């Protein structure tokens, strides 16, 4: 089976959007779920959130940031190319209910998974306030899309090149201190950002949900590699999650487990850059 890349767009430096032909996955996909892909026979299985899907046209949208070997390799592929494996939808779908006012917080590449949720919350009649942030204006993705599915959109950049000068967490705090009653916060982004949001919302009595991104292999509950500590209990993020209540998450453990293969990942990246051009397989 091969999964064709039918469209590719660059959203920001090193951030790409791809539509992948996978009709069965598209037909079953729901916000909050993810896929696992493998580029080729030698490839690693990497998880990416389902950023969007089109049931009629039979494709799934992924948005990824070039980090290491696999995402860089993926970044070099173009429309017409094929992926060897594309399995999903995996994980539990987000519980999207009508509850009132929902604040959706997306940091960096985390804006991608937040987008289909914002749309879904809005569609069933919630008031959606979105807060998106990035290092700078250039790195900010999906601003128009987020705008179109939000009642209110707030932007933060670390360097102040757009919107609030500072972190998304500042805006979360401002909202919490304001008059508006907030019924739920969903925050997705780098673990450090989610941990900070969790810290900010903790003193307030507002349900806060985060989406965890531990290292995964199968994504079906078979390997136990994605285990996270939730309220003192071990859970598998791929089947019990990836979304959990922020206040229960042991972020330190998550972050330390994410660093497990740092050396190997650097080696793989170095190896893949060894002067024989991009097609090199000799490492």
């Amino acid at each position, binding site marked *: 089976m091969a999964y064709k890349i039918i469209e590719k767009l660059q959203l920001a430096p090193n951030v790409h959007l791809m539509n992948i032909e996978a009709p069965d996955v598209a037909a079953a996909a729901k916000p909050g779920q993810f896929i696992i892909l493998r580029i080729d026979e030698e490839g690693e299985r990497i998880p990416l959130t389902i950023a969007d899907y089109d049931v009629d046209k039979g494709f799934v949208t992924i948005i990824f940031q070039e980090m290491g070997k696999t995402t860089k390799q993926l970044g070099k592929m173009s429309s017409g190319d094929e992926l060897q494996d594309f399995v999903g939808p995996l994980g539990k779908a987000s519980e999207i209910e009508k509850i009132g006012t929902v604040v959706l917080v997306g940091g960096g590449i985390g804006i991608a998974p937040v987008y289909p949720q914002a749309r879904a919350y809005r569609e069933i009649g919630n008031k959606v306030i979105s807060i998106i942030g990035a290092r700078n204006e250039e790195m900010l993705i999906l601003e128009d899309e987020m705008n179109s599915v939000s009642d209110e959109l707030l932007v933060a950049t670390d360097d102040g090149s757009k919107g609030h000068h500072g972190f998304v967490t500042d805006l979360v705090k401002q909202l919490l201190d304001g008059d508006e009653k907030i019924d739920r916060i969903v925050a997705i982004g780098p673990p450090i950002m989610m941990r900070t949001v969790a810290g900010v919302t903790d003193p307030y009595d507002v349900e806060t949900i985060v989406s965890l991104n531990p290292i995964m292999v199968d994504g079906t509950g078979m390997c136990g590699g994605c285990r996270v500590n939730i309220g003192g209990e071990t859970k598998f993020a791929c089947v019990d999650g990836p979304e959990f209540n922020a206040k229960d998450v042991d972020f330190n453990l998550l972050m330390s487990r994410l660093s497990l*293969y740092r050396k190997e990942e650097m080696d793989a990246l170095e190896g*893949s850059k060894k002067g024989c051009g991009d097609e090199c397989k000799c490492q």
Partner: protein
Amino acid sequence: MSITQEMPEQPAEVRIHNFEEVALGYTEEQAILEAERCLECKKPKCVEGCPVNIDIPGFISSMKEGKFGEAIDVIKRTNTLPAVCGRVCPQEEQCEQLCILGKKSEPISIGRLERFCADREREAGVKDPVVAEPTGKKVAIVGTGPAGLTAASDLAKAGHSVTMFEALHEAGGVLIYGIPEFRLPKAIVKEEVEYIIKLGAELKVDYVIGRIKTLDQLEDEFDAVFLGTGAGLPKFMGIEGENLNGVYSANEFLTRVNLMKAYRFPEYDTPIKRGSNVIVVGGGNVAMDAARSALRLGADEVSIVYRRSDDELPARREEIEHAKEEGIVFRLLANPVRILEGENMTVNGVECIKMELGEPDDSGRRRPVAVEGSEHVVDADIVIMAIGTSPNPIIFDGSKGLEVTPWGTIVVNEAGMTSLEGVCAGGDAVTGAATVISAMGAGKQAAQTINDYLSK
């Protein structure tokens, strides 16, 4: 009385540095000599011990005359995965245990003879199979471990249109992701899968039932369904330090090594931690495989920590012997109580406690009891938990009415039918972690049941 032919093997000091097969297989001469020892008993005990009732004296008789083609045909009448079974079946507890020769001398090496015939056929090129006229009925097979593959092949041979769904990117179940290359070369599993595809079965990999489609949907689309989803969910002990960096489930460790080829990193992209002191907790085949894989990845010392004694080790004897020859340390009558934390949440040793054997428990094995005050620390930077698995529940998502036990195994009747009409199940998903051949036996039984059901 003549004794059994020894199997040529890679010497231990060589094989611990590679992932190639340990046992090399009989030569033709050895195969015939071994076959000639068989008495071709009128009431062959060996067959009673075989879960799929291979006509053992029948195939051995052909071998005596060097008619290996005929021999494999006899085996394949009841066993579609002979190259696999010849390698991994616990023969010493099944056919060989009951062989009459075992009373006075050594039993016939039935497994090795089976392996020889299968390998011989593969080298010569497998004959195209005979398939019945199409019946127009559609059957879905969920999971492609030995149970699913066996059911698929029997149903395809009967002329049904068979579709196999597999969650991973390759078919074979534990045979592909769990059992290491040095015990079961993946090329063999792939050929067995190819054979089933030649029979006309369709294979859809990357297809998780319960996610992409529910069981309810499959029931609507197909005339019958077989669930062979295995027992893939790893168990942990719930002790302190179990989530530290460097603690693996055997499933993750073995999947990285086998399915993802991490032993060939960075040629293959999937990494694995190569420890210097590795501790494997457990005493079954899974533990042996994990330990021997860790050794081949370059660990200085690998030990098995098992709470009972040598006699109770549940792994196949041959594999225990192989592990010992390779220098795996056996820390028996010991149990981990805590994993110690080093820098950056990594593993820095395991605290174990000594055990003694007390009264027998329900399983008839003597119950291990901790010896108070006997805690001691064993050096370790990698810990692999091989203490068992339970059925994977994803399949139940979006299915109404499939009856399961409190342990998560699927309930079936003697015919292999679940509480849902037209839905059969078998293998580890029904029994909990068991053996390749029992999974195959269940696949066969289910195929028979589905056949009967479809011809009603």
